[in-house]
């Protein structure tokens, strides 16, 4: 099975949603609008791995905010970030914790939309700790493996959506 297919299956097992889209800025913005129609408060974090132009159309979506107050961030509905890696076996994505607002946009918004290039999918988590994979980025960056939306079983049954995003939607650029 190819890595992208394996990644998609594992992502769904982890309660995330995923779709493949063409590598174009309008396609990304359209996918966000399809997934979160009419979102009022959208945070867009600058990519560092992908070309910055790919997020141009997202920055023009109605509802994008750029302020930096606690109040604004507390009410964020959608956070758009890049993921610099995907992990096929577990359906995880790797998202920077810092890199400007990437950490906040992937954490504080109710819905996290992550953009991942198909060629950045590796086979297993341990690959992030090898210098010969992803140019060793996994050995240098400050990041988080994100596997599905935030979840808890502490209140009895399994509940999705705790302190982090309630929904995780992954856009694979092919």
């Amino acid at each position, binding site marked *: 099975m190819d890595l992208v297919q394996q990644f998609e299956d*594992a992502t769904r*097992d*982890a309660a995330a949603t995923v779709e493949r889209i063409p590598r174009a800025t309008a396609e990304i913005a359209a996918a966000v609008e399809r997934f979160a129609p009419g979102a009022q408060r959208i945070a867009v974090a600058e990519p560092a791995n992908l070309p910055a132009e790919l997020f141009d159309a997202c920055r023009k979506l109605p509802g994008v905010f750029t302020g*930096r*107050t*606690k*109040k604004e*961030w*507390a009410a964020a509905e959608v956070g758009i970030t890049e993921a610099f890696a995907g*992990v096929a*076996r*577990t*359906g*995880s994505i790797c998202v920077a*914790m*810092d*890199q*400007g*607002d990437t*950490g*906040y946009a992937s*954490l504080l918004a109710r819905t996290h939309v992550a953009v991942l290039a198909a060629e950045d999918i590796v086979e*297993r*988590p*341990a*690959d*992030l*700790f*090898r*210098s010969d994979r992803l140019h060793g980025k*996994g*050995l240098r*960056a*400050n*990041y*988080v*493996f*994100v*596997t*599905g*939306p*935030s*979840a*808890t*079983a*502490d*209140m*009895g*049954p*399994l*509940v999705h*959506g*705790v*302190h*982090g*995003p309630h929904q995780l939607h992954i856009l694979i650029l092919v």
Partner: protein
Amino acid sequence: MAVAPIPPLDSPRAVANKSRKSTLLAAIRMALRVEGPAVRRNVQTLNRNRYTATAAIPDYEALKDQARAIKERALAQQDELLATLEASVKRNGGHFYFARTAEDAARYTAEVCKRRGVRRVVKAKSMTSEEIGLNHALEKDGIEIAETDLAEFILQIADEQPSHIVGPALHYSRERITELFKRKFQTDLPLDTGEELTKFAREKLREKFLEADAGISGANFVAADSGTLVLVESEGNIRMTILVPPLHIAITGVEKIIPSREDLGPFIELLGASGTGQPMSSYTSVFSPPLRDAPVIADAAEPEREFHLVIIDNGRSKMRSDPVLQEALYCIRCGACSNCCANFQAVGGHAFGGETYSGGIGGAWEAGTRDISRARFSDLCTGCSRCVSQCPVRIDIPWLNTVLRQRLSRHDSSGASRAMKEALAGVPSADAGASLQKLFFGRYDIAGKWGSRLAWFANGLSRLSLTRSLLENFVGLDHRRSLPAFASPTLVSTAKKWAALRGPARSKTARHRAVLFADIFTNYGSPSRGLATLGVLEAIGVDLVVSEALPDGRAALSQGMIATATKQARRASTKLATYLAEGRDIVVVEPSVLAMFRLDYRHLLEGEDGRKLYESLRGRSFDAAEYVWKCIQEDGLDAGAIFPAARSPRGTRIFYHSHCQQKTIGSAAPTEALLRAVGFDVVTSQVECCGMAGSFGYKKEYYDLSLAVGRDLFGQVQLAEGHGERRVLVATGTSCQEQLHAGMQREIVHPMELLAELVQPVGAAQA
């Protein structure tokens, strides 16, 4: 007439310190009555998920070896790594502090908070901060602390200690959380589902995250070369804690340091799978703080980020110099040893745990970070060994608990009583601290020898109520348990007669030569299982002799009498070596004895010769059914023709329960394969252990717990039988048979007895 009131149950806090045995027993009572159902449901779910998740890792065993090797290397180089780590943290722009004691760590943290004018702290789950009593220390300075992990949030409200190292509040059912929140928050909001409770807690805490002046976390791993921390979670509260407030303080034990970031690979894959049974937990953060490239969200001027790493010793360097407790420092706190533990599944960590740490590994940690008396709860480790193959860093947890048991016995006993036991009973001085109860069970070989010589007398005596009352009062043997009868004649004496009748063995022609080890349980208690084994092995053409009856050390080891067990192991292995030299394999009836040869003797047979002997014993000793299956496959025999199940006078529907140690050493699967191959319709039990676990279930103080564990097994028998006809109950372990008998009140058969009944007379199979 007045009815004696039932004494009120203790609160979890009141029974956290179990340095007195009476507190341990009170904790078991509380746990069985209040927390048991939620613990069982949650822990068994984690247990099932772990089996699924680890089975999906193709190189799981190799990853465990790698993880273990990294931890061994890290511990050996700890002093250099500590210096490297300090340099890395400072290079990154952070502050580093090494705290010798819990007080040092708490004081430093309080000082940092004071200097930064911290009023509000958000805190992520950290067993280490529980260990050092951090909250209490900060609250004294007027700092408000919000526990943000939902389980810790519950515990903070309820004022309870964690009951599990991964799921600290898994002893709470949804209903009990609803009741707690309604009472403490005096709210009319609907709180009747997991979603409603989560939403309620989330809203309370979101505000705290944004207003916090500091975030305090622990760490799962720390890489020395880069100052990288790894933190694993599923809720997102740790990500909040380390990212949102401008000040981050991470407090963790010195054992969490590994050499480099490149070493993280195996741990990242093992922790989620072994812990919550997910391929990965929702969030695994990998970062080298301070996070300079993440501007702080602030309404006014943006404060500077500050990071402090507090590494604590608090007893760990003493553990490191202890040849046995040192193993516990490899622990990555996944909780697998708790989840696969039958006793833990029944009571959880408020009974099977101390003030911070719980479960199989918890005793070593409480002993190491506090003192030996705090490890008393490790008596609930029955040595069933299920955790041995589940630990991702291969810690032999039952061995740690055996050593703790021996040390506790010494700690508890007076010098005078030790001297008397040495003088009167010939107990080696290292074991002389053992209580009368432990001596009774630990030297079962003596009881067996005299009991079977005087079987008519001993068996009659053991049925007398006076005897039972004496045994209960002096030895702590519960009167509700039926005692296994002593057999006369023994296996060895019957086998001698049998050999004389049969004439010389056909050693020249036999393809397989073996010795049946006459273990004390089979020899004195249940020779019929041994005789059946002789018949079955004879039927497949094995040239078989029977050894003399020898204690193997299992009974002594289970009571923490290590010196006695060592002496017995040396004697038994020397004897068995002569059979190995003759080219005979070793066949064992009792699984706990086979587990001695395959697992425990590595601790008992010392030196180069001992190691070699252990290796050869391990490779050439077999469970009886496992050996039959091996011979049948090697010789290409038709198992169904030799043992046609259809002829069984008992029918072909069976329920098979394998012994806990049998599962660990890998002899359960071949037994099941053999029973199926000969034509039985087999349903197997799905429990880790029956709950009897050797002598454990006989002990008066643990009788209720033992039966609570057994109920899972009894329920599975009932489920397998449904409304259909009964199944024949089959079990390999002696104590499993006793437990199944106690629960079902039916005859329990050993696999060899089942097969021996089917043996065709020589020649008939071909006819």
